């Protein structure tokens, strides 16, 4: 789960990192009020959960309150990478001298957090890694010892930070590590960390991504999720414990297991070619019971672009009879004539098939193998599209 810029900087401030942080407006009028309150030049920044806001015109300077209102009006009407802007952050403008980068993330291979610093701030770190890899200095952090002072000095020294800023930099590095640790983050980055012309180090922009698996112990952060910014079906899927990603195709998929779900998508694409593709990624997880399956089916059917549905279940911890019951439950509530293909295998597959067969649903056909199922679903979708 990603936090907005204003939420991230709010967390940074809590862990002692100096930040530039104004207020959030949801209307041009509000933006005007905030700009007046702050006084002077402000920056109006779109709050959407994607990078490249600046390039897209989602971050603008405003020298007067009127200009702030005007710019806010403009940005609040925008969509950036398909995401509508519903909030803008009004920050006082900083007197930027130098921009650096400071971030901490998990290094999977090392099994440790790694802190990264770069003198090339203000640019996406992936870009720096690609263009000028030697500009990124890395320090692996022993999770048992936490960040040590000497490591902050190694980073400061590595990016040739002038010595008068080392103390402030070390404090910020500790604050960032504490933010990472205490928010169960998988990424916490300050970009840019600016040195103002007055010689202060301040976090101008930042990003925090939270480990979804840790949200159970981060109730305050879980509350911060911007549900408004998400499609309804994503919210429902999460509430039911389903992994769901909306895609652009025509075939709704319900699969147990992430690897098998990706494979199912890949096969739909393989047989569907340029004509039809998967409408979603949906993993019902291990051990799903009937209720959860029903929610999943309702989410799939709520997508108006869906022309056929493919169930691919290979039972292990999940039992096929439970899945079958869930499908019937959902179909009892939501009537649909979208063609559906079901393929059950593994734990209690025979029982599941018997349940489906005895229900006698006209638009639901069975398949023996994944290949067969994918082909049938693709054919059904194509037929439905031609019929329209």
């Amino acid at each position: 789960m990603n936090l907005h810029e204003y939420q991230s900087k709010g967390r940074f401030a809590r862990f002692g990192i100096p930040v530039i942080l104004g207020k959030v407006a949801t209307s041009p009028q509000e933006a005007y009020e905030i700009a007046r309150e702050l006084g002077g030049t402000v920056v109006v920044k779109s709050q959407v959960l994607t990078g490249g806001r600046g390039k897209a015109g989602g971050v603008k300077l405003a020298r007067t309150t009127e200009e702030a209102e005007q710019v806010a009006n403009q940005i609040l009407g925008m969509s950036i990478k398909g995401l509508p802007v519903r909030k803008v952050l009004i920050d006082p403008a900083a007197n930027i001298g130098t921009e650096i980068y400071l971030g901490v993330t998990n290094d999977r291979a090392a099994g440790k957090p790694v802190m990264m610093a770069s003198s090339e701030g203000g640019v996406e770190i992936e870009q720096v890694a690609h263009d000028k890899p030697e500009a990124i200095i890395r320090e692996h952090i022993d999770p048992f010892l936490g960040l040590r002072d000497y490591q902050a000095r190694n980073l400061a020294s590595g990016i040739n930070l002038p010595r008068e800023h080392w103390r402030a930099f070390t404090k910020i590095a500790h604050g960032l590590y504490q933010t990472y640790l205490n928010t169960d983050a998988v990424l916490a980055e300050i970009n840019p960390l600016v040195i103002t012309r007055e010689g202060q180090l301040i976090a101008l922009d930042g990003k925090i991504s939270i480990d979804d698996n840790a949200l159970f112990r981060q109730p305050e952060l879980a509350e911060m999720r911007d549900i408004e910014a998400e499609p309804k079906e994503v919210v429902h899927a999460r509430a039911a414990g389903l992994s769901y990603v909306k895609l652009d195709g025509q075939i709704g998929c319900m699969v147990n297991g992430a690897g098998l779900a990706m494979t199912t998508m890949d096969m739909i694409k393989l047989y569907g070619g340029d004509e039809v593709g998967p409408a979603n990624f949906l993993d019902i997880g291990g051990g799903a019971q009937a209720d959860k399956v029903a929610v999943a089916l309702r989410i799939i059917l709520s997508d108006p672009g869906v022309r056929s549905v493919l169930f691919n279940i290979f039972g292990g911890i999940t039992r096929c009879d439970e899945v079958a019951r869930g499908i019937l439950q959902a179909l009892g509530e939501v009537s649909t004539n979208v063609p559906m293909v079901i393929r059950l295998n593994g734990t209690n597959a025979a029982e599941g098939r018997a349940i489906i067969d005895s229900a006698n649903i006209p638009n639901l056909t069975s398949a023996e193998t994944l290949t067969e199922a994918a082909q049938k679903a693709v054919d059904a979708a194509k037929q439905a599209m031609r019929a329209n």
Partner: protein
Amino acid sequence: MAILADKNTRLIVQGITGREGSFHTQQMIEYGAGIVVGGVTPGKGGTEHLGVPVFDTVREAVKETGADASIIFVPAPYGADAILEAVASELPLIVCITEGIPVLDMMRVYNTMKGGPSRLIGPNCPGLITPGEAKVGIIPGYITKPGGIGMVSRSGTLTYEVIWALSELDMGQSTAVGIGGDPINGTNFIDCLRMFQDDEHTEKIVLMGEIGGDEEERAAAFIKEYVTKPVAAYIAGRTAPPGRRMGHAGAIISGGAGTAQGKIDALEEAGVKVAKIPTQIPKLLS
């Protein structure tokens, strides 16, 4: 005797009295008579469940049953503690089925176990099976067949798919291991590839990867250097859009790294035959 577990494995089940724990313990008992020697549920020590004794602590369970392996079915918030409890008893094999353990918890577990005597499979994995001998996990037993193919996979049900396809063609398996889809897990591809290469009963190897991370790339480098047995592979997520997490916490393509194509190229470069769809695997091994 395949790898990791065989008919002599003595297994305890942590979380034996829970819903999942009960169901799969029953399945494991049915598959390999005698493999499950006890269970652990704090507060239920002294009782019996599914015909085996239940203990309050792993320490007692190991002492009383002589177990040399544990399988974990506890809820995610207690996952790390359950693993560490098994580690404290120095069990050689610990399989953690539990899904959803926070990354920070797993970092602590990983760094605690490093260099120690225990091997962890998982978490968030289907465990392993040595067909005809021992099932330590949730891989459905009836889809497997004893034989000479070693399987290692980051996913669960996708593995079943391939096992099933192999068994249908009478191509049996030595051991099939699901190492799990989390960003930090106890055992990686390389660990399993090494064991399969060194195992006299394994003749060929199947590797099932997916997008995200660089495990498959590192596995490819290891195969090139160390593995002489034929290897076939499949990578899930060719069509997954970048930047979106596909179910597994590990399955995310970021900044051009971790793409399916990069992994396929690396594997092919190491002499591995890579399947376009999983059901091609049997053919690639013939």
